[in-house]
Every structure is written in structure tokens, then in C-alpha cells.
């Protein structure tokens, strides 16, 4: 019998060419795929965080149908494969709505990438809702009571008392979600979105060097998640350090919900 494992001539020159960014990015498909992966992950995560915050608020509603709607949403998006959700969104919805390419500021946002962002974002929202809920319920009930006793309505209590404290609990799992998100973007290949993995697949279709190319692209994802790990550790160390918390950097202020922070009305006015 012949051995099933044949000799494979590993082509180091292809591997290095596609591992080393200056040469790899020479191929504009790879370069644009790389950036698509990053902005798709960032936008989808942002969407998940915003919708997740809304979902967690809705879960606290005293209207039962509202809570049921959120529960059903979470059940659906956590209980079905992301790959199926993306296909349903892009191909299924295509019967009534097809995502057109959008041209913005000289950049093109292809329909499949839009669908990818929306699909990943909707899925992420289900997980973020749970993370927000856990974070909020970790805050001592006395905090809500003190805010209520001062006459703060629900939204004010959330914005100025609960969320600034819950952030400490929410940030670590949020960081892990983003690590996952960076890798989940590869699934968009099924709906034809050209991100990093899809770009390298297209190169492979021409060169037929799967081992070299997929190994090289693995290191790209590894680099992305490692860099994100550093950023995450830095954010968490700032959150954990009481002394640093007193600093007035914009991120610290944002995390603490202080006025003048990025994204607050007062901050925007400055």
C-alpha cells in the first residue's frame, strides 16, 4: 500500500512573501482584505455593544412582552450557527432586499461586507446583552436605591451611577468578545465578503499553495489577537488601578462616566 501522507514540498518563498506585510500587501486584495477584517470587526462589535446595552435595558422593563422579545432574540442568536444566520441574512433576505454597494468618501463598502457587519453585529448583540446584564446585576442594590432616593429617574441612574461602575465588570468579557469577533469575521466568506481570509483563499485558488498561504494568514490573525490582548490588558490595568483612575485622560474619564469624557455631551461641546 502507498503511504497516505505524500511528501509536500513546502514553498518557503511563497510563505515568506505572504507572511511579510510589505510584500503581501503588494497584492491589493490582501491589503484591502486586511483592513476590511479590522473595520468589520470594529463596526460589528460596536453595533453589538450598542444593541447589547439597549437589550439589557429592555430586559429590565416591567413590561413582560418586552422582556420576552429580548429573551426570544437571545435564544435565537445564541441557539443557531452564525454561519446559518449570515446566510439567512444575505441570501434569504436577498429575495426582498439586496445589500447594494455603498460608496462613501472614496471608499467602497460592498454589500456582502455590510451584510457581514450587520449579521455579526446582530449576533454579537445577543452575547453583549448577557454581558451587560451580568455587569449591571453585579452592582450592589444599595447604589440603585441611593440614586432613587435622590430622585434620579431610571436613565439617569443607569448613566451616572450604575454603568460607570458596571464598566469594570463588563470590560474583560467585552475584550474576549472582540478577540472572538476578529476571528468570526472569516465566516463572512460564505456570503462573498472579501476580507482577509477570503482574499488569501482567492490567492490560493491561483497559486494552489494552501499550506504556505493558510499558515501565513494564521499569523496575521495571531498578530491581531495578540495586539488586541495588549490593548485589553492595558485598559484593564487602568480600570483596576485606583490611583490611575484619578487621572483625567479621556479614556479614563469615559470609563468613569465623567463629564468632559469622549462621547458625552459636555465633552463634545469643548
Amino acid at each position, binding site marked *: 500500500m502507498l503511504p497516505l501522507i505524500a511528501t509536500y514540498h513546502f514553498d518557503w518563498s511563497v510563505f515568506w512573501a505572504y507572511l511579510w506585510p510589505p510584500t503581501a500587501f503588494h497584492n491589493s486584495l490582501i491589503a484591502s482584505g486586511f483592513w476590511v477584517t479590522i473595520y468589520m470587526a470594529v463596526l460589528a462589535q460596536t453595533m453589538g455593544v450598542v444593541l447589547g446595552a439597549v437589550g439589557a435595558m429592555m430586559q429590565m422593563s416591567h413590561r413582560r412582552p418586552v422582556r420576552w422579545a429580548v429573551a426570544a432574540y437571545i435564544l435565537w442568536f445564541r441557539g443557531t450557527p452564525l454561519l446559518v444566520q449570515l446566510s439567512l441574512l444575505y441570501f434569504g433576505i436577498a429575495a426582498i432586499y439586496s445589500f447594494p454597494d455603498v460608496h462613501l468618501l472614496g471608499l467602497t463598502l460592498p454589500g456582502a461586507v455590510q451584510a457581514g457587519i450587520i449579521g455579526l453585529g446582530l449576533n454579537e448583540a445577543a452575547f453583549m446583552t448577557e454581558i451587560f446584564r451580568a455587569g449591571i446585576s453585579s452592582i*450592589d442594590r*444599595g*447604589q440603585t*436605591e*441611593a*440614586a*432613587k*432616593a*435622590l*430622585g*434620579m*429617574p*431610571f436613565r*439617569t441612574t443607569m448613566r*451616572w*451611577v450604575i454603568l*460607570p*461602575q458596571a464598566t469594570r465588570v463588563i470590560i474583560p468579557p467585552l475584550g474576549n468578545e472582540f478577540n472572538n469577533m476578529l476571528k468570526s469575521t472569516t465566516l463572512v466568506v460564505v456570503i462573498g465578503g472579501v476580507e482577509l481570509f477570503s482574499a488569501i483563499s482567492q490567492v490560493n485558488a491561483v497559486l494552489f499553495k494552501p499550506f504556505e498561504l493558510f499558515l501565513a494568514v494564521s499569523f496575521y490573525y495571531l498578530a491581531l489577537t495578540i495586539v488586541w490582548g495588549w490593548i485589553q490588558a492595558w485598559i484593564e490595568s487602568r480600570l483596576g488601578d*485606583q490611583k490611575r*483612575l484619578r487621572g483625567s485622560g479621556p479614556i479614563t474619564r469615559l470609563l*468613569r*462616566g465623567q*463629564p468632559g469624557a469622549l462621547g458625552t455631551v459636555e465633552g463634545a461641546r469643548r
Partner: protein
Amino acid sequence: MTAAPDVGREAGGGHLIDVIGGAPATTTECLVELAGVCKSFGPHPVLHDVDLQVLRGECVCIVGPSGSGKSTLLRCVNHLESPTSGRVVVNGHRMGLVEQGGKCKAASEGVLAKQRRETGMVFQRFNLFPHMTALENVISGLLRVQGRTRAEATPIGEALLARVGLGDKAASYPSELSGGQQQRVAIVRALAVRPTVMLFDEPTSALDPEMIGEVLGVIAELRADGMTMIIVTHEMKFARRTADWVVMMDEGRVVERARPDAFFDRPGDPRTQRFLSKVL
């Protein structure tokens, strides 16, 4: 209990209430009225048909064994708990209800938030906001409830902190303050938004003995300034010295309401007698 140190006097003359511009008591109107208040948690009844009246400028101390429903009663006043039945009126507002076209409806959370502004509350475990400095805690109500600017609120907050002897702690976080200091911050945080009634739920029970005096000193000063107050406390000497009325609660009922001297020297109800013999 040791003598209360004269906190608050160190920042110059004037009354605590002067800082926020409240008027001292002149009339004898009823500021807080509870009538037939019942409260159950599920099938478990905690308050049975409680009546209580507090006139403007009065200080009512509530005493009684643990689990008798003192906290629940206090929390019904500002509707942190809504009574199962009965009426709670604070400064003319029917708490938890709104009138619409002659009919009463359950108040929404937003309306309830407005109604709660009549009352200030101080908790056993302080419940300061740990992510804010002492000053930010004190002005949180001015900024987020009254919508005042930081420039308006900061001098008020600083003056209030100075009046309770914490002028130098404005920039400290709650974790850097002692229990007694935290509770004094909590008191002026509640005062800053100018409530008409102050509610205290065992304000010194979580404090080390040497810090009890400084907190009771602030409350006594507030009393002297004419603030209307309901205080749940286990400090019997303080109640005797400070209260206009002492109310005894047992198993969810008000069993006795008397002037302090009568209450402590000639308690009428056997349950009061038994309770006092244990704690005095």
C-alpha cells in the same frame, strides 16, 4: 455613646440648613402622613395597618426589635417599597399616585422619581457612589436631578462638606474615608437637593463606636435647624435627647407612640417594656 464632637461648627457660624437655603419650621402642617399602610412581601406580611403623622419640624425616632419592619416602613415613605395598601402623603403629594381627570392612577417611574425629591434618605451602609469623590457624591443630585451646572453646584457642595467638617476631603473617594466620614458625606448628599423630610435608616449601626458621635452630632444639628426627620435608630440616649416622638414597632405594628420622657420612663405597652429592658 460619647459626646458628639462639634463637627460642622469649624467652618464658621450659620446653620447646616442655611447652606441650602431652607426655611426653619414655623407652621404645624402635617408633612408626612401614613394611614392604614400594609405591606406584604409575597404571602409574608411585614407591616400591618400602620398610621404615622409627622408635623413640619418634628423629629420622630422609630425603635423596635430587628425584623419588626422599621426599614420597610421608612422605605414606604419614599416608595422604595410600594405599600400593598394604605396611603402615604408627603408634603401634600400622594406618593405613588397621580391624579388625572379626578381619578387616581399608579405613578410611573418618572413621576415617582419627582415625588421622591421631597425626601432625602440616609442608609445604614452609606451607599455612597464609589466612583465619585466626596464632592461629586454631594453634588450628584444637584447635577443629575436638578440639572444645575458644575459651576453652580460645586460651591454648594464644598460649603456643605465644610459644614460637616469634611472641607479637606472633597477630593477623596469613599474608599479613602472612614465610616463616620462616609456617613456625613451621605447626609449632605441627601441634603443638597433640599428635601422637606429626611429619612435615616439606622445611620450609625454600621459604624465603629468612636465614630457614632460625629454622625449623631450632625443629625442633632440638623434637628436644631428645624429639619423634619424620621430616624430609625438603636441609640436610645440619642432618641431621648433628640426626638419629639418615639415610636415603638413590633411585628409590623406601631405599638406605642409617646414623648421621649414618657416613652423611656413610663412605657405603656408591655412589648415596649420588654424591649427597653433588653436594650437599656
